[in-house]
């Protein structure tokens, strides 16, 4: 077990280091993306254009040496463009329908600007993201393992976009907000990308490594008190609770689902292993709470009107829970 834990840390550090060669700064984002990959979760990256969202996903795919596909979501994109379709082919003199796999049949799918596609197309991802399968013409096709979806969306260009439905948002393990780089990071980005040679990301891990890392995570124990804290935190996002925070009661319409708790637990286990520990601590849960909960809390009309940030609400909940 010690070897597995060491393998987890080593692999994680290697991939993180390799990605960091190309992506300057954004260490937290890289770590969170890698954690969600280890946990078998999908990530929704949100940020203004040009902050390196697509580059990040590209780099990770290269570092993990997994099958990578990219779909640029547009309003005219159809579900068949994502999942695949049946085409008429000649086979031994006979014409028959054959399933032509879409770009979803890969290990790492980059759904770029996912909110530009219509809800119908967005919904085509639901089954794949949860069940890791795709059904076309009543035939269910297994997706390759591991399978991750890295979706990006632009928070400022709302015209002609289709906000993701709650059901789909809940299927994302983390929602990460990619911010602008700092002065030094920006300086370094220009240094690295402005020259003749662009840094190349090399493969340092494989899909099997990712699967193995996911299995290792499940061994990390969780004390009942910490588990209780996790439950309190998730329940605290619901306005119906008697001991819910006043802001939650006022500004939140729907709280996080149990899936959020599962995601937080898995991510906290990864955080613990990365920290060199073999148990989950409250700090681990706090560290992943924002990423796991921010897209699962639906603000009320009043909350939207007041411009309340879910991150602030989550911090309030964390501070109000007695441990």
């Amino acid at each position, binding site marked *: 077990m*010690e070897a597995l834990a060491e393998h987890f840390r080593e692999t994680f550090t290697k991939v993180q280091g390799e990605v960091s060669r190309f992506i300057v700064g954004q260490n937290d984002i890289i770590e969170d993306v890698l954690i969600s990959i280890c946990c078998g979760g999908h990530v929704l990256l949100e940020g203004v254009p040009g902050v390196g969202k697509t580059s990040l996903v590209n780099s990770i795919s290269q570092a993990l040496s997994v099958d990578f596909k990219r779909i640029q979501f547009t309003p005219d994109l159809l579900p068949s463009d994502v999942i695949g379709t049946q085409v008429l082919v000649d086979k031994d003199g006979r014409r028959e329908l054959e399933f032509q796999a879409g770009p979803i049949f890969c290990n790492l799918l980059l759904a770029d600007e996912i909110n530009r596609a219509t809800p119908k197309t967005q919904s085509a991802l639901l089954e794949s993201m949860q069940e890791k399968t795709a059904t076309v013409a009543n035939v269910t096709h297994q997706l390759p393992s591991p399978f991750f979806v890295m979706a990006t969306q632009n928070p400022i260009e709302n015209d002609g976009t289709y906000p993701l439905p709650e059901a789909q948002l809940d299927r994302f393990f983390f929602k990460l907000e990619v911010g602008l780089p700092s002065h030094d990071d920006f300086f370094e980005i220009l240094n690295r990308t402005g020259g003749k040679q662009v840094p190349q990301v090399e493969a340092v891990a494989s899909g099997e490594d990712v699967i193995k890392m996911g299995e290792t995570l499940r061994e990390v124990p969780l004390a009942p008190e910490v588990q209780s804290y996790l439950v309190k935190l998730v329940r605290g996002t619901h306005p119906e609770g008697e001991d819910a925070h006043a802001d939650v009661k006022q500004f939140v319409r729907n709280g996080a689902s149990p899936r959020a708790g599962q995601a937080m637990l898995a991510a906290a286990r990864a955080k613990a292993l990365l920290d060199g520990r073999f148990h989950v*601590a409250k700090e681990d849960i706090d560290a992943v709470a924002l990423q796991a909960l921010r897209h699962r809390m639906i603000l009320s009309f009043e909350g939207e009107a007041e411009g309340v940030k879910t991150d602030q609400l989550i911090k309030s909940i964390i501070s109000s829970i007695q441990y």
Partner: protein
Amino acid sequence: MKLESFIDRVSTRLNHALLLRALTVAGLIFGSVSIVIALVYICRGYAAPGWGYLVGGSLSLGALAMVVWRQRVTRDQAARYADQFFDLKDGVVSARFLTGEKGSAMQELQRKWLETRLQAVDARSIPLDFSRKLATLALILGLCAMTMSFVPASERVVSALADEQATLERSQEAVEQIQEVVSEMENDLSEDERQEIPMDELRKMVEDLKPHKDRSTVSRQFARVEQRAREMSKQLEQKQDEQSLEEAIKELKKSSNKQAKKLADQLEKSDIKAAQKELNKLKPKEQSKPLSKKEMAELRKKLENLREVSKRMAAGARANSASSASGAAGQGGGLGDEMAGMDLDAQQLEEMLKQLELSQMRNEKIDWTPYNEQVCKFCKSCDKVGCRLQAMKARQSAQCRLNKLCKNLSQCQNYCNKKGQSLCLSPVSGMKPGSASTDQRKDPGDELQANGDLQQLKGQKGAGPSLSKVEEAESGTGVSSNRITAKARDYSRQMEAFIERDNVPEELKSGVKEYFKTIHNTEMQ
């Protein structure tokens, strides 16, 4: 095991800190409460009471116990605190949970990880978290409170306390004594007296007397009993009968009759039994056969004696009833009427005997039946008077006892108020040698009734007649009031000499007497 001992050390350390905090709180409570109570007393001149410190101590101990009990650090809390303080990131909490689980590789790794961390930490590095400033303040307050316990009470308070204590002791003594007096009085009561005095009520009131340190309360208690005793005594008053008897005695004394004089002496001495015997001697016997001349003469002589006694007694009763009719409201009935009735019966008996004597002289047949009936009637009247006299005697005695009790109660009040001597000390001032104090209390007719009454013995300044008193002349008349008084006294003497004569009718005598009494009363006023 190592983990558990570490948690124990942390828990002990935290409980030490809690104890220090609790001690600080307890010290503050003790100091504050004791100082407040002590200040309240010291400002009023008293010494700080010991119970104030007891209350402060109890409250502080209670607070200490409550704080320690309610906030004592459990092992779970200690584990969590250790995680936070030593930045073990829930390592201790998780390790305790994992100890109860089945052994796994990850558990072993966690145990090793924690052991490595625990080697680097020491529970003694946990600070004993309590406020030094508050602890110092608590210490100062405690010292101040203890210092205040040495502040003595003021002289005024000391004397007041001594006074209260003395009053308490005196009241206790007085209560015991008065209870003893009542008990002795109850034992000494005759059957007749027992009927006159409601002893149960009196005993209960006396038993309800409680020693008290407050003089006014004690006085009130005694005064209440005294007032009730006076009311009882007043109810036993029989002025009319006493006056009637007094008048009757005077009349009997004037008589030349030997039996009347003897009866007067006996009544004067209040020897009622002897007087009853004397009256019984006067009763004539019933006759059934004709009497000889000699026997008839003896019977007549006897009836004359009887008539003389009854006439004198009735005259006295009449004189009294006349005076009371012109003076205060008359009581009516009573001894006077019974004596008058007896005289009437005697007169009828005498007349009846005269008729019988005439009949005998005419040699007519004598019928003794009406005479015997009249004799019987007279005997009944005579018995009535005797019973009345006996009842009077009992009431007088009972009244005397109650008056004595009132006096004792008054004396007790004075004793409690430090104005007189106790009932035990009273006889020392004038009892004859060999007489015990109980004798004095037992004997209602003590010759030294004024004993213990210091006011009476000493006299009060400004009270009572003085030889050096100069009477003021009436303004404008030029005649001294002293001369008028002397004149009135002369008239009074002359008239008294005049009314002493036998041939003056009783109504006139009493009328004149009443007239001068009225004058005398007016002068006194």
